[in-house]
């Protein structure tokens, strides 16, 4: 059973995964502690929420809204003015994006 679960997890790793949100800068769109479905197959578009690696600190996973995208690069913004955005960490390349988040 455990083996099957691991196989399923690997299979679904990019297709469908969960994102648990920590922190309240996405409020009221994202609730802290809540889990959301995300997919790596669906390229996020402007207005979508995306989960991605911070280009300045690859170990940190962030969740932000896509303000605009062009040429495989994304401009990310937070829901609140005091959250970080592409102004702080720059444009996010597609390879850093883990997936689009459904809220």
């Amino acid at each position: 059973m455990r083996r099957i679960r691991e196989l399923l997890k690997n299979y679904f790793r990019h297709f469908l995964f969960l994102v648990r949100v920590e922190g309240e800068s996405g409020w009221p769109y994202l609730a802290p502690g809540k889990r959301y479905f995300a997919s790596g197959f669906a390229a996020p578009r402007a207005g979508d929420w995306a989960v991605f690696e911070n280009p300045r600190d690859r170990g940190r996973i962030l969740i932000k809204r896509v303000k605009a995208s062009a040429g495989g690069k994304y401009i990310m913004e937070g829901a609140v003015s005091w959250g970080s955005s592409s102004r702080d960490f720059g444009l996010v390349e597609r390879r850093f994006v883990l997936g689009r988040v459904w809220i």
Partner: protein
Amino acid sequence: MDITKYIYKILPEVVAEAHCDIPCGIYEPTPAKIAAVTVLRMALQINELRPPQMPPTDVAAMKTMANSMARRIAVKEQHAEMCKRELLILWTDFFKAEHLEKYPQLHDIFWKAAKLCSKNKQEVSEEAARELVAAVDEIAKIFYEVKGVPERYEAYQRITEKLF
């Protein structure tokens, strides 16, 4: 078994940060400096106060002396407490764990500054008060560096040095 629970169990999960990267409140070391400078001023004034001639025969002069002393002691006590509270707000709310990497001595600096607040309550000491002012300045310097505006430390100094 609830199918939703099963889906949540089998799917891989990542944790995404949605922290407020910029502190939500307004933080500033100036109130701590004002309180520390007030403590210093009270210590200097208490040291200047002279008791009436002994043995005291003038009751009115004795009362005036006691009142002047009590008021300055009360203000020193209150402002040392205020200074400690303002420092604790910066320490626990503004500074984050990642700042310790750049300033590994941060906890020690705050701890000593808070101890100096207590010392200034216990004693009437110009030296202890000046140490407290210096400790607040040291914290302010780190604070502005962490905020990415080190030049504001000079503005802070210019303003708070004129308080006296």
